C-alpha cells in the first residue's frame, strides 16, 4: 500500500501555560479556563469537551480569577484590572482599573447585579454590573492586609473574605466587618509563618468553608463565628475550593496535586445529624492544583502541570461507559504547526513568536534531519491567535486580537522578508475558528463555533453554499486537491465528505454514515486537528489526533462493527495474499506521540512533529517533595 520516509521532528519547544483558575457556567455547560500567560479557553462540555474558543493572552495580564455572570465572562488579575470578554469576537471587550492594586479574586452575587473584587490594598470593592459595562459602587471597610479570596452568601447580604491569619464576614450593605474568624497557623516549625486563606466558600445555611496554606480545610458556623471542624488534608497548601450547586459536596485542591472531596452526609440511617465528612481523594495531577470546578456530575481540576482533568463522579454517571471515563486534556485542540509541503518548511506558533524551520533532505533510506532555523517573527504584547504558511513557503500570515499580518518571503542565498500589509479585523457574528482554501485557489471554506461551515467561491467572490449543520463542532476541515470535496471531522469524531460542486454529501460519506464508525474510533478522547492528502494517491485522507495518525483509504471497505480497528501489526504478519481479505479503510499508526502535526511533503516523506509529554514535564515548575516508602 505505501512506504513512507519519516521526518521525525522533536524540536518544537511547545510549552503549555499553567492553569491559574477556572469557572463553570452550568446554564451553557461551558468551562472557562484562564492560563498563566493570560489566555482564556472555553470548553464545551456538551460537545465532547471540545476547546471551542481561545482568547490569546497578553503580556502582564496575570489573570488570577474568572467569573461568569449569565453569558458574560469577567476576569481580574494582578495587573489591577477587571476585564470583560467579547466571546463573539474572542477578545477583551474592555478593561476597568479597580485602583486597588493587584486583584486576587472576583465573584458575583447570585442575582448577577454586583461584582466584588478582593484587592492588594485590603479593600473589597463592589461594582454594579450594567448592561454593557461595570461601574464602581463602593468599597467595603478596609482591612490592613491583602484580600486573597472572597465569596458571597447566596442571599447577597454578606461577603466572606479570606486574608492572612483570618476570615472576615462583611455586611454587603453597610460595608462593616461583622465577624472575624481567626485561622490557626501551622503547628511546629512553621508557627511563625502567617497562614494565608487561599479560598473560601459560603453556604446558604451560613456555613463557611475555608482552605489555607497550612494545609487545612475548616468548617465554620458563620452566624456564631465559631469553628466547627478542622481537616488537615496536606502538608502543603490547600489552594482552591469549589462548592457544588446543591451545596452537598465541596472539593479542595492541594499543592500535592490531590483533590479531596467532602460531602454533607449523615452517619445515621434516618438522615439527621448531617455533617461534613471527608470522602474521596483524587490523584490526577503531578503538580499543584490551583483551579477547580464542581459540576453536577464531575470534578474538574487544573494547575501547574497544565493539564485539564475531568473526573466524573461515579455515583452521578453510569459506570463503565464513555460518560464515566477520566478525561485529561493536555494539548490544544487546534494545530500550532504549519507545513509548506512544496518547500519542506515548518512554521511553529508560540504565543509571542513564530519560528520558521527548513527540513533537511534525505539520502536514500536514511532521513538526515538536519533542520535549520530560518527566522523568527517576534510579536509584541498581544499574543498570536493563529498563523498560516503557504505550500510554497513564500507567504506567511498571522493574526492577533487586533490585526492580521501578511508577509512575503523570498529564499535565494539569503532570505528577504517583506511585510505586505495589515488587515483590520472584521467583526463577525460567531468566531470563525477554521479556514482552508483549495489548492487551485477557487474555493474557501470556513467553520465557526456555531457548527456552520460556509463555502465561498473565490473566483466569483461570493458565498457558494452552506454545508448542512451537524450539531457537533468541526475540529478540522480540508478541501481535496483533486475532487474538491470538503472533508470535515467533528468534536464527536464523526467524519463527513461534502462535494462542493454537487453541493451535497458524497456517496462515500453516506455509506460511512450508514455503516457507522467503530466505537474505538468514536471513543478516542483527543480531536482530529489536521487533515492532509497524498499527491500520488487521491484515495488517501491522512489525519491525526494526539496519539495516532491514520490514513483512510477511500478505495477500501469500511471495517465491520466487530472488526479490529488497529490491524496494521496483524496485517504485517500475514502473507501478502491474505492481507486483502482483512484490510479495511482505516490504517492507523501509533508509533509516534504526542503528535502536534502530521503532514505529507510533495516528495512523499511524512513529517511527524512530536512533543512528548515528558519533555513538557521536564520544564514545569518544581513539584512538592513527597516522601515515599523505600525511596
Amino acid at each position: 500500500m505505501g512506504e513512507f520516509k519519516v521526518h521525525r521532528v522533536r524540536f518544537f519547544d511547545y510549552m503549555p501555560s499553567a492553569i491559574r483558575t477556572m469557572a463553570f457556567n452550568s446554564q451553557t455547560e461551558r468551562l472557562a479556563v484562564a492560563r498563566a500567560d493570560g489566555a482564556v479557553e472555553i470548553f464545551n462540555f456538551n460537545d465532547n469537551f471540545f476547546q471551542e474558543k481561545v482568547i490569546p493572552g497578553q503580556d502582564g495580564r496575570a489573570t488570577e480569577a474568572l467569573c461568569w455572570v449569565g453569558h458574560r465572562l469577567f476576569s481580574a488579575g494582578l495587573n489591577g484590572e477587571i476585564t470583560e470578554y467579547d466571546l463573539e469576537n474572542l477578545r477583551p471587550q474592555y478593561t476597568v482599573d479597580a485602583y486597588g492594586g493587584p486583584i486576587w479574586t472576583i465573584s458575583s452575587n447570585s442575582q448577577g447585579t454586583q461584582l466584588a473584587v478582593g484587592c492588594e490594598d485590603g479593600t473589597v470593592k463592589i461594582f454594579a454590573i450594567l448592561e454593557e459595562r461595570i461601574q464602581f459602587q463602593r468599597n467595603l471597610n478596609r482591612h490592613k492586609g491583602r484580600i486573597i479570596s472572597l465569596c458571597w452568601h447566596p442571599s447577597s447580604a454578606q461577603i466572606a473574605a479570606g486574608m492572612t491569619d483570618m476570615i472576615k464576614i462583611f455586611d454587603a450593605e453597610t460595608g462593616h466587618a461583622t465577624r472575624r474568624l481567626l485561622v490557626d497557623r501551622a503547628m511546629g516549625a512553621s508557627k511563625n509563618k502567617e497562614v494565608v486563606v487561599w479560598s473560601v466558600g459560603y453556604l446558604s445555611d451560613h456555613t463557611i468553608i475555608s482552605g489555607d496554606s497550612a494545609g487545612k480545610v475548616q468548617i465554620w458556623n458563620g452566624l456564631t463565628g465559631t469553628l466547627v471542624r478542622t481537616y488537615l488534608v496536606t502538608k502543603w497548601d490547600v489552594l482552591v475550593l469549589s462548592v457544588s450547586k446543591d451545596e452537598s459536596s465541596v472539593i479542595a485542591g492541594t499543592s500535592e496535586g490531590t483533590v479531596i472531596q467532602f460531602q454533607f452526609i449523615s452517619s445515621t440511617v434516618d438522615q439527621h445529624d448531617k455533617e461534613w465528612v471527608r470522602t474521596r481523594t483524587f490523584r490526577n495531577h503531578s503538580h499543584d492544583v490551583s483551579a477547580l470546578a464542581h459540576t453536577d456530575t464531575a470534578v474538574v481540576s487544573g494547575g501547574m502541570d497544565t493539564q485539564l482533568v475531568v473526573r466524573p463522579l461515579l455515583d452521578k454517571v453510569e459506570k463503565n461507559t464513555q460518560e464515566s471515563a477520566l478525561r485529561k486534556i493536555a494539548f490544544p485542540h487546534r494545530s500550532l504547526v504549519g507545513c509548506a509541503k512544496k518547500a519542506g518548511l515548518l512554521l511553529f506558533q508560540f504565543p509571542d513568536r513564530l519560528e520558521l524551520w527548513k527540513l533537511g533532505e534525505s539520502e536514500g533510506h536514511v532521513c538526515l534531519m538536519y533542520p535549520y532555523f530560518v527566522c523568527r517573527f517576534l510579536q509584541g504584547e498581544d499574543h498570536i491567535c493563529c498563523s498560516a504558511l503557504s505550500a510554497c513557503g513564500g507567504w506567511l500570515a498571522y493574526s492577533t486580537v487586533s490585526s492580521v499580518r501578511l508577509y512575503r518571503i523570498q529564499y535565494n542565498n539569503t532570505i528577504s522578508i517583506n511585510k505586505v500589509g495589515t488587515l483590520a479585523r472584521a467583526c463577525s457574528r460567531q468566531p470563525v475558528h477554521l479556514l482552508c482554501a483549495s489548492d487551485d485557489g477557487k474555493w474557501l471554506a470556513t467553520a465557526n463555533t456555531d457548527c456552520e461551515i460556509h463555502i465561498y467561491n473565490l473566483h466569483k467572490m461570493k458565498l457558494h453554499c452552506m454545508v448542512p449543520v451537524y450539531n457537533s463542532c468541526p475540529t478540522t476541515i480540508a478541501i481535496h486537491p483533486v475532487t474538491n470535496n470538503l472533508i470535515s471531522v467533528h468534536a464527536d469524531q464523526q467524519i463527513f465528505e461534502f462535494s462542493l460542486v454537487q453541493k451535497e454529501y458524497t456517496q462515500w460519506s453516506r455509506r460511512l454514515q450508514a455503516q457507522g464508525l467503530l466505537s474505538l474510533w468514536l471513543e478516542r478522547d483527543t480531536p482530529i486537528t489536521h487533515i492532509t492528502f497524498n499527491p500520488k494517491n487521491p484515495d488517501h485522507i491522512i489525519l491525526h489526533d494526539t496519539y495516532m495518525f491514520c490514513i483512510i483509504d477511500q478505495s477500501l471497505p469500511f471495517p465491520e462493527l466487530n472488526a479490529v480497528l488497529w490491524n496494521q501489526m496483524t496485517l504485517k504478519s500475514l502473507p501478502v495474499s491474505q492481507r486483502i481479505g482483512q484490510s479495511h479503510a482505516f490504517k492507523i499508526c501509533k508509533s509516534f506521540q504526542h503528535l502536534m502535526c502530521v503532514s505529507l511533503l510533495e516528495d512523499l516523506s511524512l513529517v511527524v512533529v512530536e512533543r512528548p509529554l515528558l519533555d513538557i514535564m521536564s520544564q514545569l515548575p518544581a513539584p512538592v517533595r513527597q516522601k515515599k516508602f523505600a525511596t
Partner: protein
Amino acid sequence: ETAARLSSSKTAGIEKPAESFTLSLESSDDEAPEEVTFEDSKAAALRSMKQALDTARREKQLLKEKRRKRQELFQEQKKRKLLSADVLEEIDSASSNLKGKYTVTTVKERTLASFQQQVAEEFIRSRLYGPGTCRTTNNEMLSLQNKKGWNKSAAVQFVKKDWGTFRTSLRLMTRGSLLQLLQSSWCNVSSKDKKLKKEKKDFIFS
C-alpha cells in the same frame, strides 16, 4: 505593493451576506520580523537574561528612591507648619527665576502598577516555592515514578542524558556540528527511542 481592494457583491438568494475584506499597505510602527542565525539567537538569549537582571535592579532602585522620597516628604511636612509663610515668599520670588530652567516630567503610571504586580507575584512565589516549602525537581519526581511504576525503569537522569539542555544546545549549534550529531546519535537520547531506532525508520502500511 499597490493596495488591492477585494470586495464581495450581494449574494442572491442566500441570507448571510459574504464579508468584504481589504488588503492594503499601511504604514505602521510595528517591527519587521527578525532574521536570526544560530549565533544571533544565542546572543539574544544572553542579552534578554541581562536585560531581566537590569530590570530587577532598576525596580529595586525605584523602590529605594520611592522610600527615600516619602521619608523626605514626611520631614518636609513636619517643617512646613513653621515655615509656611517664608516658603511661600521664597516660592513667589523663585518662580520667576525658574522659568525655562525646570522641566516637568510625567511619571509613568505603569511603573507603579507593574511594581505592585511584581510584589504580588513575589508573594505567591515565596509562599509556594520559597524556603520551607519542601519542593523537589521534576527529574526526581519522574525518577521516583519510574522506580515505583509497573514497568520499573532507571532514574530519569540516567535514561535521558542531557536532560533539558539537549534542546537548547541543539538550537545553538552550528549547522555542521548539528549534522554530525544527528548522523551519529539522533535517537540515542532515551531507551525508548533506542528501541524505535532499531526498527526500520521507514513506515510501511499494509
